[in-house]
């Protein structure tokens, strides 16, 4: 229940008390915006009293303001209090609304008019419109604030993720140029090699970031067609073969060569690339990566299982968030953008699917991704 404060400013006491009676029992359920609105009645017999009341009690949500008041007029009140009434909706009550007064009142921030004499029904209609406007504006403000906060956090973390490799690269280059690490040339060569690796991962981070934001914004151009799953899986495995061979890790693919679904080959390849890359990176020397794909009706299920370091339940719970990388002794020295699984999850959601993880520390992890084939007619509309 959202209780809005209504300040009624009128020199005629019977009008104030009539409005007060209406407000007392008035409620507007607004199921479409998930709110119910009720009112608190406050009153002032003159503009001077109203100014004092606002100073003492903070500005009301809605101001029902008589245009013609003894002393300071309603419009003068609006003009004087413009700053403090910035978030207040003002409804002018007037017996003789000329175009000029209406224009002047609107310029000073009046939202609506109520012509005297008015029925309780007319009052209710004006209040309903005003309170809906207020609530929607408040919700939009909160949402915008939340979005700013999320964006700020994302950018802070991103800045940190970009600063770390830059710092390492710059530190190494300084040392190589200034020759501050002794006389062993192998040390300097290793520093340059490390610079190259950090630069490569920085590029990977930027590419992942662009992929993720493109998918999130819905701006990515999708090339939808029939995608052969076995071929995509093979391509992704081939990309990681060098890294796998270097640590004697075998990659096997179990997939019906004819298995296919309707979708964007690039998106589906991202799923395989990220899962197989993780399965190799977080594996043990001599370990195994098993890729299994199966299809039924319009659903394709992809499973990538490894014999790697695995993770605890707490670690698994936060794994799909952006920039979450599990840091412990076992993962120390493994580089990554921290965005791979966030991308997998986003892609899965594009196919009405999901990602499931089962993992045992020190034994390995299995990621299962379920994708639903896109409808061909829908796909054409998307292109």
């Amino acid at each position: 229940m959202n209780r809005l404060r209504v300040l009624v400013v009128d020199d005629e006491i019977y009008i104030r008390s009539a409005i007060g009676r209406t407000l007392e029992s008035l409620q507007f359920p607004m199921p479409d915006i998930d709110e119910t609105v009720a009112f608190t009645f406050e009153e002032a017999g003159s503009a001077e009293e109203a100014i004092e009341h606002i100073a003492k009690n903070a500005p009301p949500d809605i101001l029902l303001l008589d245009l013609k008041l003894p002393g300071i007029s309603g419009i003068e009140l609006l003009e004087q209090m413009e700053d403090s009434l910035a978030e207040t909706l003002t409804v002018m009550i007037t017996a003789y609304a000329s175009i000029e007064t209406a224009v002047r009142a609107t310029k000073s921030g009046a939202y609506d008019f109520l012509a005297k004499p008015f029925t309780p029904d007319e009052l209710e209609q004006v209040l309903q419109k005003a309170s809906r406007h207020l609530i929607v504006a408040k919700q939009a403000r909160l949402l915008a604030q939340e979005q700013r906060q999320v964006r700020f956090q994302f950018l802070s973390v991103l800045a940190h993720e970009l600063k770390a490799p830059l710092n390492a690269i710059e530190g190494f280059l300084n040392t190589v140029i200034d020759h501050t690490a002794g006389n062993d040339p192998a040390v300097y060569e290793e520093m340059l090699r490390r610079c190259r690796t950090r630069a490569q991962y920085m590029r990977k981070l930027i590419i992942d970031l662009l992929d993720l934001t493109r998918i999130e914004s819905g701006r990515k151009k999708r090339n939808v067609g029939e995608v052969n799953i076995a071929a995509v899986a093979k391509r992704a495995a081939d990309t990681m073969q060098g890294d796998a061979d270097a640590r004697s890790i075998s990659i096997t693919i179990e997939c019906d060569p004819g298995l296919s679904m309707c979708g964007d080959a690039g998106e589906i390849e991202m799923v395989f690339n990220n899962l197989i890359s993780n399965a190799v990176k977080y594996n043990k020397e001599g370990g195994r990566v098993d890729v299994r794909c199966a299809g039924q009706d319009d659903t394709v299920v992809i499973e990538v299982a490894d014999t790697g370091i695995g993770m605890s339940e707490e670690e698994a719970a936060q794994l799909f968030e952006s920039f979450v990388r599990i840091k412990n002794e076992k993962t120390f020295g493994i580089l990554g953008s921290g965005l791979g699984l966030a991308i997998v999850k986003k892609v899965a959601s594009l196919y009405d699917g999901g990602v499931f993880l089962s993992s045992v520390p020190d034994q390995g992890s299995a990621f299962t991704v379920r994708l639903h084939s896109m409808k061909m007619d829908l796909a054409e509309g998307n292109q």
Partner: protein
Amino acid sequence: MPAKTILVIDDDPDVHFFCKSLLEAEGYRVRTAISGAAGLKAAQEEKPDLVILDIMMERINAGYKVAEALGKEMPILMFSSMLNPSDAVFDPDQVPYRDVISKPIAGEVLLGKVRELLGADPA
């Protein structure tokens, strides 16, 4: 006299390699730890002459908690990757660190601060 021991606590393996390369070339003995918890354990076991500690480990300012736990038994040199080094100034009565170095680390600056805190002789 054995070489003076420096414990480097940082979650970036390249920082370990960097510090090891520079400080071992100068004759120091260098030990490394990848987290605050591992660093505290290593500090108790090794009783290093100096601890070098990254402020931004795991979560923001986690390094300060480690510095507090280490107490005033040994000098502490902080690494900060904040863009503005003055952001990293905390109350020295609360946190017993002696100095802050901004990342990216310049070798001469690191060696200069280490000599300042441990004396010119690495042993």
